[in-house]
């Protein structure tokens, strides 16, 4: 079902929605830096950046989350789990790549026979409002990674910025709940044409230039390749690519507290950290950046596809934008289709 939300009604629309739900939207922390956060007032919403620094996965998989509290009282230990989500939530303004990525993390966190209830509870209680990318950035390569800048799959509602209004597509049962909202008016017959125009333009810009097809098979033969000896050289081993990556889901579990009370925390972790695979004996199967960058790329493009039949990358390009030493994952992918690393002609 198609609807239209005039931009002058945007804030009042959000206000009406916030009466019943917690609203999460991109918020600017400082010029050029935005993250998804729970907002108190509609004027905090900021769509000026195509992509927030921290991806939307944060809403379902927070960077630091207490899993449960424990307390020792009179010789007994009491554990209170924190998985309950009290209010319904809405995630507004996530791009199609971020939304696709949430479904990839969902596959891992819900894989049989264990269900990650912390993730599931948040996911169940959230309505996803996607926002189409007009225009995408030059670092975007979602189409090569199985997505596209206007992919609707995964969104409950889908917005397209038409300039003076948003077109609002109600796609699922959760989305249809909004069909009675008084701010969502009848769609203009022109809207469909304008949307198609924006889609075509965006599609053309993103293109299909990254050879993702068959990358799993190519990497099968490359585990011990010299390729890795060269690919890792400039990597300094920080965690920017993994923390800003919408599909990365690795975490650490630590207890914080003392004998009497405390919490078991779940914090994001990164396979690029030297301590990640360090065993108590002192042995580290991934001692240098060579093995760790290999793990990252193999996981995204070989191990993940083996289990879930899809590359573990959505082509958002954040890792390319923010890597301090300008590591370009597209280059690494292109190199897997040539014999050895050479200066590319991009």
């Amino acid at each position, binding site marked *: 079902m198609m609807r239209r939300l005039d931009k002058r009604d945007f804030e009042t629309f959000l206000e009406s929605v916030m009466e019943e739900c917690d609203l999460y939207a991109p918020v600017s922390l400082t010029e050029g830096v935005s993250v998804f956060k729970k907002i108190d007032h509609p004027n905090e919403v900021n769509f000026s950046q195509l992509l927030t620094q921290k991806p939307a996965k944060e809403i379902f998989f927070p960077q630091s989350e207490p*899993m*449960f509290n*424990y307390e*020792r009282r009179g*010789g*007994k*230990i009491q*554990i209170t*789990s924190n*998985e309950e989500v009290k209010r319904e939530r809405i995630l507004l303004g996530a791009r199609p790549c971020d939304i696709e990525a949430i479904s990839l993390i969902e596959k*891992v*966190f819900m*894989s049989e026979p*264990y*269900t*990650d*209830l*912390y993730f*599931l509870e948040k996911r169940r209680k959230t309505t996803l409002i996607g926002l189409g990318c007009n225009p995408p950035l030059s670092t975007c390569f979602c189409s090569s990674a199985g997505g596209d800048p206007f992919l609707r799959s995964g969104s409950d509602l889908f917005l397209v910025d038409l300039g003076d209004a948003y077109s609002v597509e109600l796609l699922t049962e959760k989305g249809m709940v909004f069909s009675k909202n008084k701010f969502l008016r009848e769609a203009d017959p022109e809207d469909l044409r304008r949307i198609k125009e924006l889609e075509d333009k965006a599609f053309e810009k993103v293109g299909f230039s990254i050879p993702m097809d068959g990358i799993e098979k190519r990497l099968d033969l490359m*585990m*011990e390749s010299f390729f890795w000896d060269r690919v890792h050289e400039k990597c300094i081993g920080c965690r920017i690519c993994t923390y800003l990556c919408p599909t990365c*889901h*690795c*975490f*650490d*579990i*630590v*207890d914080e*507290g*003392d*004998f009497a009370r*405390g919490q*078991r925390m779940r914090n994001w*972790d990164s*396979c690029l950290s030297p301590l*990640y*695979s*360090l*065993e*108590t*004996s002192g*042995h580290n*199967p*991934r001692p240098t950046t060579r*093995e760790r960058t290999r*793990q990252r790329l*193999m*996981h995204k493009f*070989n*191990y*993940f596809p*083996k*289990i879930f039949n899809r590359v573990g990358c959505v082509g958002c390009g954040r890792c390319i934008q923010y890597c301090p030493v300008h590591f370009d994952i597209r280059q690494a992918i292109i190199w897997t289709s040539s014999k050895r690393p050479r200066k590319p002609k991009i």
Partner: protein
Amino acid sequence: MKNPYLPIPMVVKKAYSETSDRMLRTIELGFLNESDEKGFQFMPGQFCELSVLGKGEAPFGIASSPTEKGSLKFTINKAGRVTTALHHLEEGEEVGLRGPLGNHYPIDRFEGKNVLIIGGGFAFTTLRSLVVYLSHPENRSKVKEITIIYGARMPGLLLYKEELAQWENRKDLNLVVTVDWGDKNWKGKVGLVPNVLEEIAPSSKDTYAVICGPPIMIKFTFPKLMALKFPNERIYTSLEKRMKCGIGKCGRCNIGHLFVCKDGPVFSYAQLEKLPKDY
């Protein structure tokens, strides 16, 4: 739906040192909730995550066998924060447990076949579970010959000395215990596990081998198994890797596309051959 991250409460029933250097300590845990005990079904080879709340959680192979009812046995090597906290536990104290996790030794494959068990050092924990299970009257007839080769660096570092003495006396088990260096009281074999294996030269015909030990022992024992013509599909091992969640979500313990905590820790060498050498 059950939250797989929440530990169940267990109480320490017994705790004692296993080795002369006091670095290995065995604890026996009892269930505090009857419903937990009823729901806990496991097989040899599986592991549990033990929590000392406030210090952390760590994975340990279950050393007791499912045939030993009433408590679960774990042998802990004192190496870091959580293991030190586990070492300091006294009888009556509470710990958390999540489990059983992982896969188990392919006992259904062993039926009607011989089993060769090779253990080194303190990797013998889940092998104890396997031996006790197989040698239980209900199960002993399921497999044919059982040969056990167990080696430690010194006599004082052998685990489960009581059980070893019992197994020595059994006619239906071939137990060979060896040490790298003997002492003045040691009357048994002296020799490295790979060499003892070569000496005993068990037949590989219709035999499954299970090998657990420190990397250096595996490195030298494996070629001997090859020389005895054991095919990769019939050699099993239990791998160790740094773990956190134990349920295949945190991503840490992967070897290729498999997780040691969920698809392992028991793997056959045929499986490992196809996986990246990332361990």
